[in-house]
């Protein structure tokens, strides 16, 4: 096991990055499921950090002596693994192997964790026909089926949000209203009586049938920005942009500080406040290390364009499920791809383009 070769000094510095490394430690022969501890608060953890060195030493001792308890061992090794991006190929393979074993035990079926890298000459792009969307939320639920999010009353995580929006009112009277008057940019309307549509909407609409008369719908998920603000703010550099476009997270290296959530202009990131609730029979066993593998408490997650599918040629789950065919996906570098045809022929905009994030997600109308 290569982890035993890590110098002790290095282990201690890493441990301060780890989320619950101290509290999660159990004796190697303990049968308790080490992945579901009752973890203390961050503050408590920091107070305890004086004890990190000792705890790490004990942990290392446990690793060296070895144990038959697969789960305990894999978890320990997991806690002391490096940042995925900096791992060698062997380390990546080991990390993936550990995870496969742990997940297979936990979910009682054969779970594969994929580590396929980006393909040369591919840059993924997404286009959504905002005129066609009817707000049925099938994409939201398909995403959950595919990506192993937490579900149920206790903690529900959905990566796609669909906003129901009023249709804008560009009436003559309102256009002459309000700020800033005769010169400058005419915004129309004012704070109490807006002209046009402001980016606010209803999440919790629940009519008998959609689309409703005078509404339109705005699905929002991660835009896979070329200049992602979330990546800029991550203090441990656990989130980064892959060469083929998707912005991904190494969940094991995430410290749960939630800076990225604050930085994202698109409200695309979600935090596991509690232990994720993922029933065994609903778990999707085909996973990717950077994508839909089961997450733990205290880490951030987000859309990856279904990296576990697109790296093997398959459409993302939301593209396939859309009953109106509003969602288009493909390689931006291939002039024959569906997304390029949309860019060629349709009227396209990017959400909050003024934020200079250069999204790879385009909205269009016919």
């Amino acid at each position, binding site marked *: 096991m290569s982890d035993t070769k890590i110098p002790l000094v290095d282990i201690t510095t890493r441990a301060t990055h780890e989320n619950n490394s101290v509290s999660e430690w159990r004796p190697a022969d303990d049968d308790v499921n080490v992945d579901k501890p009752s973890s203390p608060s961050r503050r408590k953890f920091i107070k305890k950090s004086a004890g990190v060195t000792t705890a790490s030493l004990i942990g290392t001792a446990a690793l060296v002596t070895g144990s038959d308890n697969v789960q305990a061992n894999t978890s320990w090794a997991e806690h002391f693994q490096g940042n995925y991006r900096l791992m060698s190929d062997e380390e990546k393979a080991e990390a993936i192997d550990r995870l496969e074993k742990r997940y297979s035990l936990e979910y009682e079926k054969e779970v594969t964790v994929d580590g396929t890298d980006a393909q040369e000459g591919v840059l993924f792009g997404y286009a959504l026909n905002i005129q066609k969307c009817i707000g049925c939320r099938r994409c939201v639920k398909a995403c959950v089926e595919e990506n192993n999010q937490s579900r149920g009353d206790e903690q529900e995580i959905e990566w796609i949000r669909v906003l129901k929006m*009023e249709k804008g009112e560009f009436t003559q009277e309102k256009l002459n209203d309000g700020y800033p008057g005769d010169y400058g940019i005419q915004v129309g309307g004012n704070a109490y009586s807006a002209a046009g*549509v402001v980016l606010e909407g209803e999440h919790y609409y629940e009519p008998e049938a959609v689309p409703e008369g005078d509404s339109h719908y705005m699905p929002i998920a991660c835009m896979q920005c070329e200049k992602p603000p979330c990546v800029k703010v991550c203090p441990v550099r656990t989130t980064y942009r892959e060469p083929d476009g998707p912005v991904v997270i190494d969940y094991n290296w995430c410290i749960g500080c939630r800076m990225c959530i604050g930085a994202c202009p698109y409200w695309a990131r979600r935090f596991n406040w509690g232990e994720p609730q993922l029933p065994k029979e609903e778990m999707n066993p085909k996973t990717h290390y950077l994508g839909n593998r089961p997450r733990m408490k205290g880490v951030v997650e987000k859309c990856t364009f279904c990296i576990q599918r697109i790296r093997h040629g398959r459409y993302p789950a939301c593209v396939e499920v859309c009953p109106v065919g509003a969602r288009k996906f493909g390689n931006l570098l291939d002039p024959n791809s569906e997304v390029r045809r949309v860019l060629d022929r349709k009227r396209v905009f990017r959400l909050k383009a003024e934020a200079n994030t250069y999204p790879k997600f385009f909205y269009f109308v016919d």
Partner: protein
Amino acid sequence: MNKFNLGTLKMFLVAGVVMLGAPDAFSEEVVCFESRKGASEVTKKDISEGWPNVKCSPKTGAVLWWGDPFDGTQPMGEMPIEADYLKGEAVVKPRTGKLALYAICGVACHNGTFPVKNDDRNPRTLIMHQDVVPDAMNLQHGRGGIWCLDCHHSDKRNKLVDNFGNEISFDQSQKLCGKCHGPVYRDWRDGIHGKRIGEWASDGKKRWFVCTECHNPHDVQQGERNRGFAQLHPEPAPILPKGIYNKDHEQHHGSGANKEDAVESGDH
């Protein structure tokens, strides 16, 4: 005879289980619709252990996820206008097998000599086939300008017809719809209208959803709605955040309907 007996036995067994009140017996026979109700359907089954062919919405019965996107498909066949897809890589799910009267209607009732061929091609009200098409008397397509025989073959009733009197299979409705809806057809052919599942690469294998899988050809106008696409039931809304017990807070946003109330009550 043996088969029949087995079938009856099975039915009795199923009935027995149902009477005992075990809903689990039914969960193995879940039939979900793929895009719209009344079009293509699929029966849920396991492809391999823990890997179903589809996952369906418990609320609406719509397919949410395909384990195998090409299950039950066949090659799409020739397209009348050249398109840059690879033949054999474009597949569709055939519809003819699902049509109850398909096998006999071209032989038993419409065998070429009966009913007597009528050359009057002017649209007029025909009181027939409300058994097969319940809304036959209220055609919501073409705003009164078209009628049955503009799409259905006059002699061969298990075929559709193109502008030159050639047969079109019920599996290839796009060839028929493209007659009038040229720009939409072109967009569909190039993959930017309609839906495809499978592989994203432009030369990858895809299952194309044909026109009738999403649109009901007899009801595209939708009466007063005047839309091409029927309303459907949405999936459930997200669960409210902890500590919030209703959705009132989002009724006061922007140019929403309740903005006057919002101003009065001092909300933003």
